[in-house]
C-alpha cells in the first residue's frame, strides 16, 4: 500500500473515521514507522480516539488531542502541540478529522502547511449504510462540503460500509458498485475497503485492497442480546 507522510481521514460523521484512523496508525507503527495520531474532532462528545490512549501508547504511537476531550466540558480547543503534525516531518501523521464540514473546519488551520509540504493523502470514508449518505450522490455532496470547509481536496476513497455488529460479507459486497460509482463521479481511486477482521476470509477473493479492522473499542454488548 502506498503510504504518505500525512494521512487524513475525513467524511460524514459516524462513517467510521476514528476507528479506521486508529487501526491505520497501528498498521504504520507495526511496519516500524514513527507515528503520531491526531484527534482533530471538535464536534463529537463521546467515543473518541482518546478512548484508545492506552493501546496507542503501548505501540509507541503519540496521541495529540483536543484539550478537553473526554471531560465534562464542551469546549472545542486544540492544543499548541497539535502543530507538531506539520512541524515534526520526521514522523508519520494520521489525522482523525471531525465529521462533516463542521468537523473539517478545524483542519483549515493546518491546511496551508500540509499543502505546502505536499506529502499527504486525504481519504474520504464512506459508509453507504448511514442514512444521509445512502448513495454516491449524497456522499459526493458531503465530500465537496468538507473540501470547502478545510481547503484540501480529497485524494482517494475508503469504503467502510457496515452495519456494526450485524455486518455480513454480503452487506459489504452490495456496496461495491456504489463506491465505484462515487469513484467515477469524483475521479478518485478506491484506496481500500475496510472491514472487521472476522469478515476478511469471506471477502479476500472478491474485494480488492481489503484492510482489516480490529475494533477500536467495544463499549456495550448488543441489546437485547437474547
Amino acid at each position, binding site marked *: 500500500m502506498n503510504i504518505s507522510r500525512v494521512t487524513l481521514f475525513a467524511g460524514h*460523521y*459516524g462513517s467510521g473515521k476514528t476507528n479506521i484512523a486508529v487501526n491505520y496508525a497501528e498498521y504504520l507503527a507495526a511496519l516500524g514507522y514513527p507515528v503520531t495520531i491526531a484527534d482533530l474532532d471538535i464536534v*463529537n*462528545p*463521546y*467515543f473518541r480516539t482518546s478512548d484508545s490512549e492506552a493501546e496507542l501508547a503501548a505501540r509507541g504511537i503519540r496521541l495529540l488531542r483536543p484539550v478537553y476531550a473526554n471531560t*465534562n*466540558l*464542551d469546549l472545542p480547543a486544540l492544543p499548541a502541540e497539535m502543530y507538531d503534525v506539520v512541524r515534526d516531518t520526521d514522523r508519520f501523521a494520521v489525522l482523525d478529522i471531525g465529521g462533516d464540514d463542521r468537523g473539517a473546519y478545524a483542519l483549515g488551520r493546518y491546511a496551508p502547511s500540509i499543502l505546502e509540504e505536499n506529502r499527504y493523502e486525504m481519504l474520504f470514508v464512506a*459508509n*453507504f*449504510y*448511514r*442514512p*444521509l449518505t*445512502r448513495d454516491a450522490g449524497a456522499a459526493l455532496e458531503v465530500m465537496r462540503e468538507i473540501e470547502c470547509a478545510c481547503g484540501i481536496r480529497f485524494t482517494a476513497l475508503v469504503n467502510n460500509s*457496515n*452495519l*456494526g*455488529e*450485524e455486518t455480513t460479507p454480503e*452487506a459489504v459486497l*452490495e*456496496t461495491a458498485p456504489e463506491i465505484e460509482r462515487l469513484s467515477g463521479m469524483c475521479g478518485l481511486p478506491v484506496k481500500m475497503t475496510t472491514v472487521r477482521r472476522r469478515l476478511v476470509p469471506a471477502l479476500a477473493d472478491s474485494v480488492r485492497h481489503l484492510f482489516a479492522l480490529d475494533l477500536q473499542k467495544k*463499549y*456495550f*454488548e*448488543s*441489546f*437485547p*442480546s*437474547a
Partner: protein
Amino acid sequence: MAEKVLMKGNEAIAEAAIAAGCRHYYGYPITPQTEIAAYMAKRMPKIGGVFLQAESEIAAINMVYGTASAGYRVMTSSSSPGISLKSEGLSYIAGSDLPSLVVNVQRGGPGLGSIQPGQSDYFQATKGGGHGDYHMIVLAPASVQEMASLTVKGFDLADKYRMTSMILADGTMGQMMEPVSFEHIEVKTYDKPWALTGTRGKRKHNIITSLSLVPKELEEWNFSRYERYRLIEENEVMYEEFMMEDAEVCIVAFGISARVSQNAIRMARAKGIRAGMIRPITLWPFPKAPLAKAADKVRAFISVELSMGQMIEDVELATRCKRPVLLCNRVGGMIPSPESVLAKIEEAMGGDRT
C-alpha cells in the same frame, strides 16, 4: 442494499419522528442531543417540513405549544438543563391537554454539570418538572432501535391521550450507533376536533387554554385529566422481563443501565447466582404490578441508576418494601461497570458464594 441503516440514537429519534408524520421541529442545540436538531435541519426542508432553531429552549417549547394547538404532530428535544427551561411550557401544554413529543437526552447534573450521560432527571420526568398536577408519558429506550420505535409510540400515545410523551434517553443512547430498521412502522392517526384549524364560520370556535376563571371548573378539569391518567396506568404500562423465571435477585434498570445490568446478570448466572431483571420501558406509568408480583418471589431488588437514587423510591413503593431494595449507581457522567453491578448482586445474595 439491506433495509437497515446504521444510525446514532439521536438520528433514529429524528428519522422516526418524520416517519410518524412529524413535520414541525423546534430546538436549540445542546450536547449530547444536538444530532437531533442537525438531522432535522437537513431533512425537514427536503420533505416540506419546518425546522426552526429557536432563540432559546423556552421559545422552542412555546412554539410546540402553538403548533400542537393547531393539531399538528410536533416535537422538540434537549438535554437536562434545557428541559428545566422547558418545564413551564410543559406544564402549560399539560394544562391545555395538548399532545406533543419532547426528547430529553440526559447528561450529568445538577446545574451545567456534564456533557457525559446521566439519568438524574427521573424525578423531573416522572413526577412533573413543571408546576401543578400533571403527568407525562415517559418512555425509556435501551437501544437505537427502541429510540426509533418508542418515538413513534410516543406520538401515538400523545395523540390518543392529549398529553406530552417524553423520550427519556441518556447521552450514551443518543450517541451510540446501531443498525435500525424503519420497516413495520405503523402510524396511527387521530381525529382532533379540538384543534384550532379555523372555523370558516361553520362551527363554534375551539378554545385552547390552561386558565379557568372558576375554581370548581378547574377542579373538574383536574379530575377528568386524572381519570385519563388512571386509564393510562391501566392500559399503557410497558416493561420487559429478562431471566426472571427463577430469579432470586431482581435488578430494576432502564436505558443504558439496563444494558450494563444485562451483562452483569450473565456474569452472575455463570457463577450460579440466579439474577434477573425487570426493565421498565414506560417510567410513567411505572410497572408496579410486575414488581409487586416479583416481591413475592425474589430475595432482594437492586435499582441500577445513573442518579443518586431516584427510581429506587418507585421500586420501594411498588413492592411495598416487602424486600430490601439496594442501590447501584454512578453519577456525574459516569456509568457503573458490569463488575460493580455483579458485586451488588453478590451483596444482595449475602456475599460472594463462590
